[in-house]
């Protein structure tokens, strides 16, 4: 299976505008590979560089050095994002639009034919159980409904790679279960999923492989099953050990 997502010696520095302020190194020579059909968990404590990596992959931030590729196309080229779907941590959508208008808008960005767009909208609204509210403005939706609308928009182009940024953050147990079901369904369909999360139990359940980032450096990368076998403990304990917490933690 070929690499769908790849970073090569990715380095990101944030320079402050203030005089004499230090340059902050957010990512140090990150090499990462995600293969087709994998569900890849991207872990790390706050400030580890997960969001920066995600920002580079989505073209929000230009790397200081190195490069990142989606489907072997540099992320600097917008076309690299033609076959991806992205679900942000929080819902950020045009609240004056209805769900179907939002999906139609994003479908146009992907240059989807009109007939296919309408078919996809029907399918996705059914999938995320928003058919009944399809003509209501998003501002009238509950938080869970908005997150489901977000999932629908992430899938509008039938993406081969899904980038999910804390997809279950802030959702109630029912909402989390639904999101998990959707990820599972996508995995069954052979889609590649790359997601960052702090919910290690969730990652352990759905991910094939994980990478743990700490202080901008890749500390570990491997198959979940291999790590569990190697360390003989839960993913959460492995994570704490790698980020240097276990030493101080009570035995």
């Amino acid at each position, binding site marked *: 299976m070929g690499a769908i997502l790849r970073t090569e010696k990715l380095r990101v520095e944030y320079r402050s505008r203030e005089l004499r302020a230090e340059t902050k190194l957010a990512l140090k020579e990150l090499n990462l590979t995600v293969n087709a059909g994998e569900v890849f968990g991207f872990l790390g404590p706050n400030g580890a560089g997960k969001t920066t990596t995600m920002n580079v992959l989505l073209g929000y931030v230009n790397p200081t050095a190195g490069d990142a590729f989606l489907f072997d196309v540099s992320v600097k080229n917008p076309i690299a994002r033609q076959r991806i779907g*992205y679900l942000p941590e929080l819902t950020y959508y045009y*609240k*004056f639009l209805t769900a179907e208008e939002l999906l139609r*808008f994003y479908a146009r*960005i992907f*240059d989807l034919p009109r007939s296919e767009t309408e078919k996809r909208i029907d399918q996705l609204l059914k999938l995320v159980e928003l058919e009944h509210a399809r003509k209501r403005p998003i501002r009238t939706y509950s938080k869970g409904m908005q997150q489901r609308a977000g999932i629908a928009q992430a899938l509008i182009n039938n993406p081969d790679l899904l980038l999910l940024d804390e997809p279950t953050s802030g959702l109630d147990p029912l909402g989390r279960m639904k999101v998990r079901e959707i990820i599972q369904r996508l995995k069954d369909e052979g889609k590649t999923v790359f997601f960052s999360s702090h919910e290690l139990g969730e990652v352990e359940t759905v991910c094939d492989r994980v990478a743990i980032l700490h202080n901008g450096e890749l500390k570990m990368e491997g198959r979940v099953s291999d790590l569990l076998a190697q360390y003989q403990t839960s993913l959460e304990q492995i994570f704490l050990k790698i980020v240097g917490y276990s030493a101080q933690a009570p035995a």
Partner: protein
Amino acid sequence: MNKILAVANVVIKELYRRKDFYVLFILTVLITGLAGSLRFFDDERIARFLKEVCLSLIWLSALVVAVTTTARQIPAERESRTIFPLLAKPISRTQVLLGKFAGCWLASGIALLVLYVFFAIVSASKEHAFPAVNYVQALWMHWQMLGIVIAMTLLGSIVLTTPAANVTIMFVVTTGILFVGPYLNKVAAKMTEPSGSILSALYFAIPHLEFFDFRNRIVHGWPPVDWKYVGAATAYGWAYLAIFLLAACVAFRRKALN
């Protein structure tokens, strides 16, 4: 192009779902109605005063719609973070910006059309005439002027820190150019150096929006302008529009989104 139009479509939807335009349109209708109800020396044939009041309100409303709609586009995208899922799609920042521009310009054009139709009705009710060519020219030129203002405001929304500051500055700049811009050379001629040269350079650098102001022509019933001059003014406007858009694109590409 499809991507640009998709973004533009959302801007237009936003305009007609917000109350701003409706409020301004109703105010224009009400104030025009009030001005129309005034009787001066018992002479019903007085028409130009009403036309002037109505056109001035149209200019003000159109400017408010164009500047306020444009000024909030990029800051609102950043503030509500809708820019992130949008840029996660295969669309470049330049395309987003061009889409925003096209949306604001088209939305302003639609608003202008509605306002000019109202003006034509008001004018016809008083003068029983419909100088269609004059109206088309006035509408077209007004729209071109709004294009320049929108491009300028879009640049301001990226460079300036808050939409309120941008709106205020754009109003001051636009009205300043309209009222004082044509005479800067005359003022410069009376000034000492280097102020005179600086003002003179400013005179040649600013977009001369007064070319696009056909209010007097409409109010006083001057004949239509030769189309070749309308074409030349349009090209002149587009040149400024392109300069402002280019600057906005460069600034937006360098701008950190967070």
